[in-house]
Structures are given as structure tokens and as C-alpha cells.
């Protein structure tokens, strides 16, 4: 298909290519480049010093902890949801699918707000929590809940269309041959969807570690305590510590780039084992 337009419209193709490069360059590459440029502006020592800051280390640690809790939970949910939705017929399936997609169309701020309305000082369960000396909002628990809400659909979204395409024949054959439920899942289903699962977990993790809006609502932003890495970046930026902010940001930008590379590698290498929308 390459270049058939070029044959008919000489001079048009290079023009479009240049325009595309300009759009990608100005809109996408420039912001990425400026992160690393600003981080390195005062030299390597200043860059590295940003990571020696205990608050920065606490933020990195918190971000890793939150992702380590939220991502596996959403992976288990994604597997369960896709098994139920792609393998069985039941009333309300379409509604369930719509509800699973809902967090994608909600503002991250709203995804944080809902937890404050439940567990905040004046929330539904606020007084009860206070009586029992429990805290959710302004703690790691609240941050985890907000992160789970935002990353909720990622794994299910990758698995459901793929499992629907694959059909249940292999699993049905295994059952006929006498395999039990978990054997079927472990030996047949999981190998069939493993790359889609990895893909979903990858996107889920990137979002979990980079989430800002939802987390900023529930965290309370206590430095060294409830600041995740994105919130730490905001704190430094508002202090006019630009090298510190962009150094921390370069870490997250690096995470984004690694995610992009792995995602692209999966799309090339295992295209046939991903859901149809991911093949290119």
C-alpha cells in the first residue's frame, strides 16, 4: 500500500510527511525533550542530588508500594471479569461492560472525590472510621483506593475482546478430557492470554505510577509521608525547585518511555496474541 498516493500526487507526500513531523515534533517530542533538558540544566551533580532528598525517596517508595498493591488486584479482577464475560452468557452483561469502562470517562479528580465522600471527615463512613480510630483519606489506603479506581478497566479491557475472539473451544475440550476448573485456567486459558495480560498490566502499572489528579485529592500531600512521585513533582515545582521537579519528572518520563517501548515490542512481536485493536 505504500506510496500509491505519491504516484498520483507528486510533491504531496513529502509535504504531508513534513507536516506530520512538525505536529509530532512540536506537540509530543518537545515536551518530552524539555523534561530531560531542564533536569540536566545544572549538571549531573544537581540532577543526582534531587534523588538523595529523603522526601524524594519516600515518594518513590510510596509510588512503588501503591502500584504493587493496586496493579495485582486489578489484574485478578481483570482475569475474573474476562472469564465471566467472555465465557458465559448472563443477563446484564452489556451493562456490566459499560460499568467496567466507566472510570475511563470520569475525571481523575472525580475518581478521588468519590472516596472522600465515602471516607472523608464528613463522608458516609467518616464518623464510623473516627470512632474506631481508623483513617483512609490522607493515608496510603486512600491513595491505593483512588489508584485502583483510575486503573480499574485496563486489564479487563485487553482480555475481554481477545478471549471473546478466541472462543471457548480449547477450554471446553480440556473439561471434556476431565480437567478441573483451575487446571483449565492455568494450563489453557492463561497461556492463551498471557501476552494480552502482560500488555494490560503494563498500561495499568504506567497509569498507577503516574496518576496525579485522583491521588492529589485523597493524599493530603504530606511531604515524606503521603506524597507520591507525581505529587512530589508538584510540590518541588511550586517551590520553584525546577531542577528537582524535572529530575523527578525525568524518572516518570523514563517509566513512560520504557512502557512505550515494551508496549510497541509486544504489538510487533505478539500481535496475533493481543486483542484485535492492538495489532498493527
Amino acid at each position, binding site marked *: *500500500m*505504500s506510496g*500509491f*498516493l*505519491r504516484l*498520483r*500526487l507528486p510533491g504531496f*507526500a513529502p509535504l*504531508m*510527511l513534513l*507536516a*506530520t*513531523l512538525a*505536529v*509530532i515534533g*512540536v*506537540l509530543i517530542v*518537545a*515536551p*518530552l525533550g*524539555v523534561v530531560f533538558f531542564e533536569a540536566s540544566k545544572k549538571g549531573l551533580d544537581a540532577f543526582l542530588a534531587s534523588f538523595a532528598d529523603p522526601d524524594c525517596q519516600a515518594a518513590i517508595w510510596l509510588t512503588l508500594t501503591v502500584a504493587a498493591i493496586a496493579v495485582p488486584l486489578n489484574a485478578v*479482577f481483570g482475569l*475474573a*471479569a474476562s472469564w465471566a464475560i467472555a465465557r*458465559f452468557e448472563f443477563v446484564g452483561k452489556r451493562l*456490566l461492560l459499560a460499568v467496567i469502562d*466507566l472510570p475511563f*470517562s470520569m*475525571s*481523575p*479528580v*472525580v475518581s478521588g*472525590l*468519590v*472516596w*472522600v*465522600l*465515602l471516607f*472523608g*471527615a464528613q*463522608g458516609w463512613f467518616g464518623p464510623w472510621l473516627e470512632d474506631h480510630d481508623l483513617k483512609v483519606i490522607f493515608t496510603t489506603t486512600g491513595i491505593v*483506593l483512588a489508584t485502583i479506581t483510575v486503573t*480499574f478497566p485496563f486489564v479487563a479491557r485487553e482480555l475481554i475482546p481477545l478471549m471473546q475472539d478466541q472462543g471457548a473451544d480449547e*477450554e471446553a475440550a480440556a473439561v471434556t478430557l476431565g480437567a478441573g*476448573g483451575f487446571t483449565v*485456567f492455568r494450563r489453557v486459558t492463561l497461556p492463551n492470554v498471557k501476552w494480552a495480560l502482560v500488555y494490560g498490566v503494563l*498500561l495499568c502499572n504506567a497509569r498507577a*505510577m*503516574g496518576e*496525579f*489528579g485522583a491521588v492529589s485529592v485523597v493524599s493530603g500531600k504530606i511531604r515524606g509521608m503521603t506524597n507520591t512521585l*507525581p505529587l512530589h*513533582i508538584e510540590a518541588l515545582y511550586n517551590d520553584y525547585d525546577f531542577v528537582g*521537579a*524535572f529530575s523527578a519528572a525525568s524518572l*516518570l518520563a523514563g*517509566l*513512560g518511555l520504557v*512502557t*512505550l517501548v515494551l508496549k510497541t515490542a509486544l504489538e510487533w512481536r505478539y500481535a496475533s496474541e493481543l486483542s484485535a485493536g492492538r495489532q498493527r
Partner: protein
Amino acid sequence: MLPGFPLALGITLIWVGAIVILPLTALALRPWENGWDGIWKTLTDERVIASLRLSFGLSAAAALLDIPLGLLVAWTLTRFEFPGRRLIDALVDLPFALPTAVAGIALTALYAPTGAFGQVATKLGLKIAYSPLGIFIALVFIGLPFVVRQVQPVLMDFDQEVEEAATTLGATPGQRFWRVMLPGLAPALFGGVSLAFARAVGEYGSVIFIAGNIPGQSEIAPLLIVSKLEEYDYAGAATIGVTMVLISLAALLALSVAQWLYAGRRAA
């Protein structure tokens, strides 16, 4: 019959119930604690009206600009072969992969009066960062991949025989684009614009740094929710949250109706 249905559906329903249904119920019920009067008072506040108008207006404008930009990028990526094509293709997803706070401070550094693009803009007499124009650019940035990724597969599958037939019948390149290609791409464009718009309306991290956040001028609706929460006005925050969800749903519904009417007119 496969095993495991009760367990799988059980886990799914518990998780959906705890993470989506229960929290959204709390959101939907909260605005009513001060009755209609409370809701009315929140929604007629000038600052709230201005922020909703800004958020929805700029999101619509940004999604519209993403149409030609996304179409251009998708077209180049599917129709031409050039060195680095796959790199460009992968880079399109960067706004998805880059955490919003990082995008926010990066765009601000670029478009601030001292920044690389900001200096040029200042010479031209334009103020980008700390004005609605800055918000607009951030929203164009986060919306672009939605349009490209919706249009790309359709362009790839587009039946070239139809285009060739149009050419054989004497269609000019312009006619071929407007009369043959665009109608085929319209559903994907509607889809991409809807997604870009929905994302832009709720966008927070990549916007608040560049916005300037002046009440009534460059304060987006999600930021106002945060302000209300900081004042412990839970009902007010929930009212704005519910209003945003409702307006978004109405806009998306209008887009699907428009697409449906368009498809009907084409078929007739």
C-alpha cells in the same frame, strides 16, 4: 459447560460494586444534602459557570483541532513508507504514557514567556502559558492519540479499489478525499473526537500547571472541585462532579445521534 462462573462473576461484581458502584452512589446522592437550593446556589455561582464553560468549550475546540491533526498523522503513518515511521507511530501514544503531571510541567516550561516556544509567542504578542490558550494546547496534546488510533485502522483497511474507481470515473484528488474518503472515515472521526473530548473535559494534571488558574478566567472545572473540597464543601464538589458527568454524557449522546443521523443520510 465450563466451570468457575459463580466465582468469576462473584469476584467481578464485588469489585465493581466496591470500586465503582458504591463510590458513584455516594457521588450521586451527596449534592442533595442541602436540597435543590444548595444545588441551585452552587450551579448559579459565576465562578462555577465560568469554569464549566471554560472546560467544555476548550475541550470541544481542542477535540476539533485534533481532527485535522489526527487525520494528517494517521494518513502519513498508514499511506507512506519512510525511515522512522514505526518510531513516529510509537511516539503518538506518548500522551497516554507520560504521567499528566510530567506533561503539565513540561508544557509549562515550553510555553512560559521564558520557554523555548513561549519566547517566540511573546514576540508575536501572544500569551500562551497561564492563559486559556495554554489550556487549549495541553488539551490538544492529550487528545491527539485518540483520533489517530481511531482513524488509523480504518485507513489501513480502506478499500483502495473504491478510490481507484473514483479516480477512473474522473474524480479529482479533492473530490476523492471529500466525497469518498471522508464519509468512510466519519464514524472513526466521530469516535476519536468523542474520546478526546471526554478525556479533555476531566483532564487535570497536564492542565493545572499551564493554566494559571485565575478564577473566572483560566480555572477549569476539575480544579474547582478540588477547591470546594479544600473548603470542606463536599456537596458543592459533588454537585460540580455530577454536573460534569451529566454534561459529558449529554455531549457524547449528541455526538452518537449526530453520527447516527449522518449514517442514515448517507444510506438514504
